[in-house]
Structures are given as structure tokens and as C-alpha cells.
């Protein structure tokens, strides 16, 4: 027989599951305080994610950019850099894809990859700029990425407005069909949900990210720089180049996320008064996923499902969607503080023992 109690207390693999459970319980508690029925709410949430092929497809659509931005943040983290700038890089990725998608005409097998590359490149440069500023002048990347987020928003708005705007609209022309990365057959399968090639690329990106970091020499360099730049320099690694490179690649990940949003989901870009927020969510995803590519994918799944499902919860059970932020926040809280769960489990175990004795 499996010793469940030991498994729960000892095994670290159980901690994330318990954390999710605790987060959901806390969410239920908050709902009860507000006079809502948590069971009703959660069943609506669940149904909104898995209830129909369409919803499931849209959940995937929601998850996709989160994987990209999560990877972006996690990758930089591995090199010892805190990339708050995935948001801006994501926006630049959108813009790059829009530029290529709208202005260029080419057969699809050239156009779509080129548009993706355009987004990835622009975003990579945007991220790399923060890396360069750090490498060259030692400017803290937290400041520069915060600043670059705003600049990305405005620069994109300018590009959209000045070069790509459809008259009388507040968005670009639609991108050419040849640049789209939507997948008709898959979309069909999911009741016209906007699933697109992005999800496969996101999973591929996670695999590549893993392989790069742990299976290549450059990845070893990056991690060494992240853990101990002095030792890395001593061992002959170029710390400055690695810092720039890490931010560039981080930017590429975020940028791909942004590019796929344009090429796969919207097919146009709007003049936006605020950036979409997926980059900031990427920070939470990365942290929730322990800055590991596999963790990022799982965290993005959780995060994306919860936030997509929240609409069903509002619709069906009238629970304000803010509850989802509370749930996600508390899940991260519990994941980050396994001590709390162990402590609670300890209390639980002790109580049990006492009862057994009595």
C-alpha cells in the first residue's frame, strides 16, 4: 500500500498539487465570504474550460502566449536577469509581425515565417537593448525594462498609426492571408476556436529552451553567468555578451508570443492605450513554473485555464472575475512557500496522531 501521508509530507512533487488545492480552497473561502457558491462557481469554471471543443480550443489559445512570455522571463532568470520587460518585447513582437504581415506580399511558406522572424527579431533587439545597457554601462535591467515597456507601447502605436493604419479605423490593415498562422483544420476541430500554429511552436520553444540551457555549451555558459559571473569570467566566458544574449533570446521568446497573437489570433494590430499584460502575467507564470521550461508550460496551462474559465464563472455563477486573480495569487503564494504547506501538514499529522492516541 502506498503510504499517502508520507508521500504528501515528504515528496516535493506533491507540493505544487497541494498548493493548487490550497489556492482553490482559499478562493472558495473568499467566495463564501462574498456570498457566492464556490461549488457552483468552480463547476462553471471547469465547464468553461473543458465543456466544449470551442472553449477548450480557446483555452489553448489563451495558454499559448503565456508559455512564450513565461519562457522569456524564465530564460533571463536563468542568466541571473530579472526581465520585467517581456511585456514590451511582446508588443514589439506584435509590431514586427504586423509590419511584415501587412506591408509584404509573398507566398505563405515565406511570408508567415518571415513575419514570425520579424516579430521575434524586433522583440529580441528590444530585449537585447536592455541587456546591452546592462552589459555596457551596468544599468539595472529592472529599470530599463520598465522604461522600455512604455516605450514599446508608444513606438508600436506610432508605427501602426503612421505606416499601417487602415483609414477610418484604429487598427492596421488586416495582414495578408499568406502571413496568417491560423490552422483552419484544427480550428474546425475546435468549433472555430482560434487555435493556431503558436501552441506547437510554444511547446517546441519550451523544449528548445530546455535543450539550450541544459544540453548546450552556450546554455551552460548562461547558467554559469547567472549563478556566478565571477567564476564564469574566470572560466573564460564573456559575461557581457552572455547578458546581452540572454536578454535577446528572452526577447525572442516574448516576441514570438506577440507575433503569434497577430498572425494567429487577431490578424491586425490596434492602437492600444495599454499593453496587453501578457508579459506581466509571464512573470507570474515563470515564477510559478520554477523558471523551468516544463514548469512554465504547466504553469501557463493552469494560469491560462483559470483566466479563460473565469468568464464562464462570471457568466454562470455571477462571481466577479477578480476572484481568479485571488486564486492565482494564492496558488503562487503556496507554491513559493512550501514551508507553509509542510507546516500545515505537520499540524494535520500531529492532530491525527493525537486523535489516534486518544
Amino acid at each position: 500500500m502506498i503510504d499517502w501521508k508520507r508521500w504528501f509530507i515528504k515528496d516535493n512533487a506533491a507540493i505544487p498539487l497541494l498548493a493548487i488545492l490550497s489556492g482553490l480552497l482559499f478562493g472558495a473561502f473568499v467566495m463564501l465570504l462574498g456570498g457566492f457558491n464556490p461549488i457552483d462557481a468552480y463547476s462553471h469554471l471547469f465547464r468553461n474550460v473543458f465543456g466544449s471543443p470551442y472553449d477548450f480550443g480557446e483555452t489553448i489559445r489563451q495558454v499559448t502566449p503565456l508559455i512564450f512570455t513565461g519562457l522569456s522571463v524564465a530564460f533571463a532568470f536563468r542568466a541571473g536577469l530579472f526581465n520585467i520587460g517581456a511585456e514590451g518585447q511582446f508588443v514589439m513582437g506584435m509590431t514586427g509581425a504586423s509590419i511584415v504581415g501587412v506591408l509584404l506580399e509573398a507566398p505563405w511558406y515565406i511570408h508567415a515565417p518571415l513575419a514570425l522572424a520579424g516579430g521575434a527579431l524586433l522583440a529580441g533587439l528590444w530585449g537585447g537593448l536592455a541587456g546591452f545597457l546592462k552589459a555596457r554601462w551596468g544599468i539595472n535591467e529592472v529599470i530599463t525594462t520598465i522604461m522600455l515597456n512604455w516605450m514599446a507601447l508608444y513606438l508600436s502605436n506610432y508605427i501602426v498609426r503612421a505606416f499601417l493604419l487602415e483609414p477610418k479605423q484604429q487598427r492596421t490593415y488586416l495582414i495578408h492571408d499568406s502571413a496568417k498562422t491560423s490552422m483552419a483544420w484544427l480550428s474546425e476541430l475546435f468549433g472555430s476556436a482560434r487555435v493556431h500554429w503558436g501552441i506547437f511552436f510554444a511547446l517546441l520553444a519550451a523544449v528548445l529552451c530546455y535543450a539550450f540551457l541544459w544540453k548546450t555549451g552556450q546554455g551552460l555558459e548562461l547558467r554559469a553567468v547567472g549563478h556566478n559571473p565571477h567564476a564564469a569570467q574566470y572560466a573564460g566566458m564573456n559575461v557581457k555578451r552572455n547578458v546581452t544574449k540572454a536578454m535577446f533570446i528572452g526577447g525572442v521568446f516574448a516576441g514570438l508570443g506577440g507575433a503569434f497573437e497577430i498572425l494567429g489570433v487577431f490578424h491586425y494590430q490596434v492602437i492600444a492605450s495599454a499593453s496587453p499584460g501578457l508579459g506581466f502575467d509571464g512573470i507570474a507564470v515563470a515564477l510559478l513554473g520554477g523558471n523551468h521550461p516544463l514548469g512554465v508550460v504547466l504553469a501557463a496551462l493552469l494560469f491560462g485555464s483559470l483566466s479563460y474559465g473565469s468568464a464562464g464563472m462570471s457568466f454562470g455563477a455571477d462571481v466577479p472575475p477578480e476572484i481568479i486573480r485571488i486564486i492565482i495569487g494564492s496558488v503562487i503564494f503556496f507554491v513559493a512557500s512550501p514551508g507553509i504547506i509542510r507546516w500545515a501538514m505537520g499540524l494535520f499529522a500531529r492532530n491525527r496522531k493525537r486523535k489516534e492516541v486518544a
Partner: protein
Amino acid sequence: MQQTKVVDMRGITKRFPGITVNDGIDLSLLQGEVHAILGENGAGKSTLMNILFGLYQPDEGEIRIHGKPALIDNPNTAIRLGIGMVHQHFKLVQPFTVAENIILGSEPRRGFSISYREAVRRVEDLSRQYGLNVDPNARIEEISVGMQQRVEILKTLYRGADILVFDEPTAVLTPDEIEELLDIMRSLVRQGKSILLITHKLKEIMEIADRVTVIRRGKVIGNVAKAETNPSQLAEMMVGRSVSMAIDKKPIEPGKPVLQVERLVVKGREGAPAVNGISFTVREGEVVGIAGVDGNGQSELIQALTGLRKAESGEVRLMGADITNAAPRAISETGMGHIPEDRHKHGLVLDFSLRENMALRTYDKKPFKRYGLLDYAAIDKHAQELVEQFDVRCPDIYTQARALSGGNQQKAIIAREIEKGPELLIAAQPTRGLDVGAIEYIHRRIVEQRNKGKGVLLVSYELDEILSLSDRVLIIFDGQIIGETRPEETNDRELGLRMAGSRLDKDAERSHAG
């Protein structure tokens, strides 16, 4: 003479997950004595002292202070009981001044504010009373390691400690500083303090201790009075076998030059030249030792040679190739190995596994990299071989470097640097903080390199080490080589004088500045 036990630890047992670090240890400290504790790296000495100081709680056992049972559950209690500890790794706040570090926690006040004037006055008083001679207004990051240690001592005295614990105080000191420290200890004992001293250096024990307790693998092996023992007996008790410090150094005729340094100038941290026109040569089959007091340009010299710091002018040639201001990797590939002074900062990525650390310099070379990917099979094989060959004690090669003891960390670095077959090996403080067993081993490895016809450049503050390993000794002072000698033509006293003759001026300068 009737002496009372000021500290009496009985049956102290401390377990960490998986190991028993202290196993029923008995230890007593008499009023007014210096009691040395000796043991291999990882024997459990620091742990025992941390228990006495309230940082850890023992699982079993009892502590009596001045005869009264004491429950020491945090450092505060220890301090109240009059225990002061100078830790193995200093507990000093680098950007703070000496006075600030000393008064921290019990600050003299005026109203809501700290009275710095009062603080400085008290520090000066104490410093004078014990002959410590520190400048209260200097910043920790600007003063020498020896001075920092005095600050640690002052911290305990300021809190009124009469039981002082020194955990490996001399590992980081220069010979002069060690002498001064021993003087300070004597003065402390004269003024009624009792001292527990952890050290790996048998010479110091013979010089100052009254009694010695030897610990091996968490157990007390023996307790002897200094008068009734000798260094080789102590070493044998500690390691469990006889240790020979004699080195097998066949005379070799030095060959072609390996390293040539010409009029090298390197700037130091403050921008003034720390290395000021140094020239020397290291040949095949010789160990060149650089002797000097800490802070005379040794670190900057090595950093410039290894590509970690920019040379302002001059030239460095390795195997005839100009490597002045070349990148560390290029230098390494030209044929240089480097055992760095600070193993935690430069030598290892502590969060990496041992196998990755073993490949830290060569991961992008042939057997480890295939089709652009790391070949972990090859990396593992390599690491495994090194671990066996160099006797690095670790659970396995997947263990984090952080989890190794200092001695084994050092062995791992040496293994990595020697294995790549460098024409020149630069060894900076290669045995700092290690036990005699480990030192013996590392010394053998270094001499082995020389015997194989390679060049070795050795930098050490440990004169014994310099004298026993080197074929030639260069004396460095104020960024310049001020003399050269041979071990057989000198002794540590003379060498010490030649390096330190100028040290007096330096100190005078400092006190003027202060």
C-alpha cells in the same frame, strides 16, 4: 594552581539529516587558558562552537558556564553569559566603519541618535587597552584582513566577553599578522580571558595553546597538554595516519622560459598602480614563489596574468606567445592553469553540480561537445575520473559544489586545472583553510607538476609553504619585485623581515591618515 572550568560541555551530540556531526563530545575550558581544538576539515569543530554560541541547539548533552548549567538558545544568551566568538568567516558589514561594526546592537545613544563620538571614544579605549591599534573611522572594505579580525575581537570585548572562541582565525592571516594575533591572545589571557582556539596549524598550537582537544569525525580522539605532545603526534591523532610534510623535490635544471613578464603595470581598485613595473620569468621545471604581505599587488598581478584584469602597460608572454590583455579563455588555451585565490568567487559555480564544475573551462572542447550539444556521457566520465584520481570526497559527481567541504572544493579545482595539462600552473593560496592531510596532498600535486617539467607560479602568504615548495622566491612589495632568493639560502624569519621591513612604514602611513 587551582583553575575553574569556565566552559564545560558534556556529551554534546548534534545530528544533521543523515550525519552525526558531533558525537558525545566533552570539552572543558579552564579559566585563563588557551585551549586548542584540532581536527580535519568537516570534523565538526565549527558546529561545536556554534552550539556553544547559541547558533545551533545540541540534540543531546549539557553545557555549563562557570559551573552553572546554561541553556544557550541564541547568540544573545551566549553574549550575556560572556561568550564571544570570532567566526571562521567574518561577520562584518563591509560598507560600515569599524566603530559602527563594533557598536552594532548596543549602540551608545544621545536622544534618539547614535552618539558616534562616544562610539569612537569607546572603541579607541578598548583598542588601546588590548593593544589592538585599529582606526575606528576606517571602513571595513578598506582595511586588511588582519585588521578586520581585530575588529571581530573588539566586537566581543566590547560586549564584555571573557570567554573567547576563535574559529580558524589564522587561516586568512599573513605571518606577521599571525604573530600579532598570538600576542593579542596572550595579552587577553593576561587580562583574565579564556580562549578556545580552532586551528589547522600545528605550529600555532605549539606556540600558544595550553591544552589540545583533537576531534575526528565528530568524536573526541584525545585531549593532551601541549607540554606532553609534539606536532607529528597531533597530526597523526587528527588524520589517523602519519603525515609527512617533507616533500620529494629532486633537483631539476630549469628549462626554457614558460612565462615571461616584462615591466607589467596594473591598476588597483582605487586606480593607482597596484603592480608597478614587474618583470620576472618562470621556466620549465621550476616553482617560483611570490612572497609578500597581503595587498602588495599579488592579487592584481595574478588577475592580469590570467586575463581577469587589464594590464596598463608591459608585456606578458606564455610559451613565447604574447598574451598581454588576451581573454581568459585564450590564455587558458595557450597553456595556463589557475587555482584562484578565492575559490568560492572564482573557482566554482557553487550551484552547479561537480560534473559541470569539472567541465567549466572545457565544456566547448572536443570530447564534451558533439554536434553542438554537450555530451554528458563524456563529461560524467571525465568528472568521475578526476574525482577518483584526485581523491575528491563527495557522494557523487551530481552533488552540488556547495555541499562539498572547503578542502574537497579545493581538490576539485586543482584536479580541473592540473588535468588539462597546463605548461604553467598559477596557484594562489592553494591551501588556505585546509587541514594538514589536505595540504600534504595538494603540495604533492604541485611539486609533481614541476617534476613533470611544467612551470609553477605560487603565491602564498604562508612562508612555510613558499619555502618548502619553491625553487626560487621573489619578494614583492608595493607592486614591485624587491628581491629574489632561494629557499635553501634563507629562512622564514629572514624572509619575513625582508617582506615586512617596509610594512612598518605602511602602518605608520595608515595611522597618519587615520
